């Protein structure tokens, strides 16, 4: 193990990089991905690489472990990694560094740990690869690594595979396999992306602990709030170059570069509510919906009452996934649904879409019975009545209103399942559930946009076909008209017309999400169910899509049911908020009330877990034109 490689005198910089260039030779020529990047890192410090996808962050990070693709060409004025000239390291020498002196934590632990092997085997592999022979010693070190990563019962967890662990434990295990050999330098690529807020906070704490132990930490993130918590230094990358770098508080508090400012503005936050997040121009919708629909604009767009859904577990018991959930989405408003994974968000969404039949409870869509037991006539009147006592009219009293609505419907007693059954029976003389046949004519009224639009596109279809296909489903117009309508829809979501002929695969993430929105709009819906619509997007693209959704809502009068694990996003977009935990509604009310004065400990804990962005200091840089890129006059 003692070799010229890997040994680094204490307090020497871990990294000293000058003018790093990485290019890839592809069949279409040489592509420069990283240009003139200079970085330095001292022990006990954290450096954040920030920028949108394709900016060269990941390639830079992989260069530091010598794991770029085989067609990569690396050159640098100086590429000092732990005292080694990394441009001259052989593959064998690199292998001695990897795992032992440099720990590399990839994004998304579910796919970054071998799903067929146990977590213990994965960690053990690092020990074996570096020649640690003793079986007992290795086992002890596996347990120690898991314990250090904050995993309570390592003996049990070591025998589980990544798929059997929760998101947080999985991420900890991933960090454990990278740090088991006590590396001086840890590189983490998006270590908290896609994690729930509370879990994210725990992982941030763990990473901060690594830093305190004197390790150097390089991490990549597009979440500036996360960055502000962990980083000592920030390097902002765009198109392969570092456009701005420096001390974290300097860069975030007093950004010098236009691009850095755009990134900061794009973060949805309390201060920016109701303002535009991006610099893209507003879309304008020229044609208003003309489709005839029984959808009533006076009734709530979507109202769910006492939804219950249970599933059978493998051991025969029944698990309640959605437990007495009620909500009202007022017409033209946005209702945000917040909750960690497993809180019942998705099942609630599927019930609202009429895709999953609830065990009990009803949903009305624009005043019409949509899901569940009420017969058409009774449902109609119920819908109109709920419309009168519209929930969440902007104050914090909506929970009370909700309870009131329930009790009037139930005759003041006996809520939940039994109440529902009785109601169905007394009102209609039989709990006839709304069937799909009855639903189908109204399906155009509610449409879905989900997190991963690509998987919902037929990859062989062109963008134009993806959209016209939706029109076909609604039997709208002649083929020529559909073509025109597809073009019009593309314009509505701010995409150029030449995209009509492209395949979805060739589009960027933001463009794909816009196509998904265009497709959802094709049949002129009244309600959009947005299930984590921006969770897979970079913060700047996320800002553009959120702005687009706001424009469309304003101009088309759409109502949004908006599901997200990102509380910043929810705060930005929502009029009302529903907090779910273990299938139950923990708290509901106006966004204002929930975010400023949460009444339950759970919501408070959720909010506390969200890393805040530091306050921006007034720009002191001469020549910085305030709000030049921000027509709506945002958060400054």
């Amino acid at each position, binding site marked *: 193990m003692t070799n010229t490689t890997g040994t680094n005198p204490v307090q020497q910089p871990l990294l000293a990089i000058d003018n790093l260039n990485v290019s890839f030779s592809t069949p279409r020529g040489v592509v420069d991905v990283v240009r003139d990047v200079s970085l330095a890192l001292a022990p006990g410090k954290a450096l954040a690489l920030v920028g949108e996808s394709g900016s060269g962050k990941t390639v830079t990070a992989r260069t530091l*472990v010598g794991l770029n693709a085989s067609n990569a060409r690396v050159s640098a004025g100086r590429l000092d990694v732990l005292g080694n000239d990394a441009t001259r390291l052989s593959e064998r020498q690199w292998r001695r560094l990897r795992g032992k002196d440099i*720990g590399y934590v*990839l994004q998304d632990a579910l796919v970054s*740990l071998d*799903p*067929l092997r146990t977590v213990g085997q994965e960690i053990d*592999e690092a020990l074996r690869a570096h020649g640690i022979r003793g079986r007992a010693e290795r086992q002890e070190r596996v347990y120690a690594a898991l314990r250090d990563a904050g995993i309570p019962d390592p003996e049990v967890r070591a025998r589980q595979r990544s798929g059997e662990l929760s998101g947080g434990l999985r991420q900890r295990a991933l960090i454990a396999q*990278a740090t088991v050999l006590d590396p001086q330098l840890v590189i983490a690529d998006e270590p908290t992306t896609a994690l729930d807020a509370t879990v994210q906070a725990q992982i941030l704490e763990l990473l901060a602990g690594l830093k305190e132990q004197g390790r150097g930490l390089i991490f990549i993130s597009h979440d500036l709030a996360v960055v502000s918590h962990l980083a000592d230094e920030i390097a902002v990358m765009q198109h392969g170059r570092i456009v701005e770098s420096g001390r974290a508080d300097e860069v975030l508090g007093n950004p010098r570069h236009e691009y850095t400012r755009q990134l900061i503005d794009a973060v949805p936050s309390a201060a920016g509510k109701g303002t535009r997040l991006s610099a893209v121009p507003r879309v304008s919708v020229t044609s208003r919906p003309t489709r005839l629909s029984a959808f009533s604009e006076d009734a709530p767009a979507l109202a769910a009452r006492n939804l219950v859904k249970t599933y059978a577990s*493998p051991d025969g018991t029944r698990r309640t996934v959605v437990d007495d959930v009620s909500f009202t989405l007022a017409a033209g408003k946005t209702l945000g649904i917040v909750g960690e994974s497993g809180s019942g968000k998705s099942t609630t969404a599927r019930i609202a879409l009429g895709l999953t039949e609830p065990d009990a409870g009803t949903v009305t869509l624009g005043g019409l019975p949509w899901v569940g037991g009420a017969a058409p006539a009774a449902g109609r009147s119920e819908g109109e009545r709920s419309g009168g006592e519209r929930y969440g009219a902007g104050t914090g009293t909506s929970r009370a209103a909700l309870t009131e609505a329930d009790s009037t419907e139930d005759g003041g007693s006996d809520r939940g399942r039994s109440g529902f059954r009785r109601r169905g029976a007394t009102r209609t003389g039989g709990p006839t559930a709304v069937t799909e046949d009855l639903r189908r004519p109204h399906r155009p009224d509610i449409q879905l946009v989900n997190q991963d639009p690509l998987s919902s596109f037929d990859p062989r279809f062109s963008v134009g076909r993806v959209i016209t296909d939706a029109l076909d489903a609604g039997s709208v117009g002649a083929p020529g008209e559909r073509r025109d309508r597809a073009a019009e829809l593309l314009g509505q979501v701010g995409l150029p017309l030449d995209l009509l002929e492209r395949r979805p695969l060739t589009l960027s993430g933001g463009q794909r999400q816009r196509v998904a929105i265009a497709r959802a709009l094709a049949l002129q819906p009244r309600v959009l169910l947005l299930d984590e619509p921006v969770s897979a997007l970079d913060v700047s693209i996320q800002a553009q899509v959120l702005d687009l959704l706001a424009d469309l809502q304003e101009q088309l009068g759409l109502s949004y049911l908006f599901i997200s694990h990102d509380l910043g996003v929810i705060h930005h977009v929502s009029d009302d908020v529903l907090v779910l935990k273990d299938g139950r509604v923990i708290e509901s009310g106006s966004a204002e009330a929930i975010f400023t004065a949460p009444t339950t400990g759970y919501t408070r804990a959720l909010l506390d877990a969200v890393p805040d962005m530091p306050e921006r200091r007034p720009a002191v840089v001469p020549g910085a034109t305030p709000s030049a890129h921000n027509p709506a006059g945002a958060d400054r």
Partner: protein
Amino acid sequence: MSTSSLDSLSAAPRTTATAGTAGKVIAKRAAGSLFVLWAAVTLTFFVLRLTPGDPITAILGGAGSSPSPETVAAVRAEYGLDQPVLVQYLSYLGNLLTGDFGVSYIFKVPVLEIIGPQILPTLQLAGLALVFAWVIALAFTLLTVGRGRVLDGAGRAVEVFFASLPQFWVGIMLAVVFAVTLGWFPVAGNDGFRSLVLPALSLAVPLAGFIAQVTRSSFEDALAQPFVLSARARGLSDTAVRITHALRHAILPGLTLSAWAVGSLVSSAVVAEVIFARPGLGRSLVDAIVNRDLPITLAVVFLIAAVYILVNLVVDVLYRVVDPRTNPKGSAA
């Protein structure tokens, strides 16, 4: 035998395993197996009845002989062929339950006496062919996938070439080169392992092409997974990553394919058996069909179906060993 019924048979327990207890799974599985056996025998029974011609002719020495009507009637009664078809079918099923496959029309001896000695040689042939096919396929995958465009392309081309080769042509070429010209292996016969190599290879080469194709694409997928990069970042060598991580993922689809392959190997063994003059079920089946020897045909079909079922069972177990995620008790393993 339709492969679709087998696919559903092999797929069903894998998906339902998580939803039910072990006992339920086994019961379902046993019921499914019995159904496949029954369906195979029943279909064959009635299809053979539908083909033109009278089995009596076969029993009484073929089209050339001219037996007297009395003889015909006597034989008809002896073999139960004067009964309605449904009665014949039910009595056949009843006998089958007691392990009685009937008497061969041609050889006039119990069917088991004729095909019994053929079973082992055929299973040996099919088994060794499968082993060869996997060895060739894995060697190709490990050596060529992701090793640069030239090697990768060459590997791909050879796989397609192998997969498109007819078994009889491979058999003849192997016989000419390795038996006749080089004399390394016997030209024909059934005399120990050496006589098994060439017939097995002639069946293995096209199959290896198929297995390598599916293995290659899943191997490529596995190599592109982030966990491979994680393993490299732990300090593992490229070769170690291929063997300990990517290979395990890559063999899963090939494993499923193998269940189908063994069944089809048993029925396509006839090609190798004829070329290399080996005894075996395949030859018995072809002879029986040509001679309209109903009992033997039915027995061989029954055996092939049984092999299909057994192999599917084995593959299912193997699948769960390789991929513990499909095992409901995998967490305890």
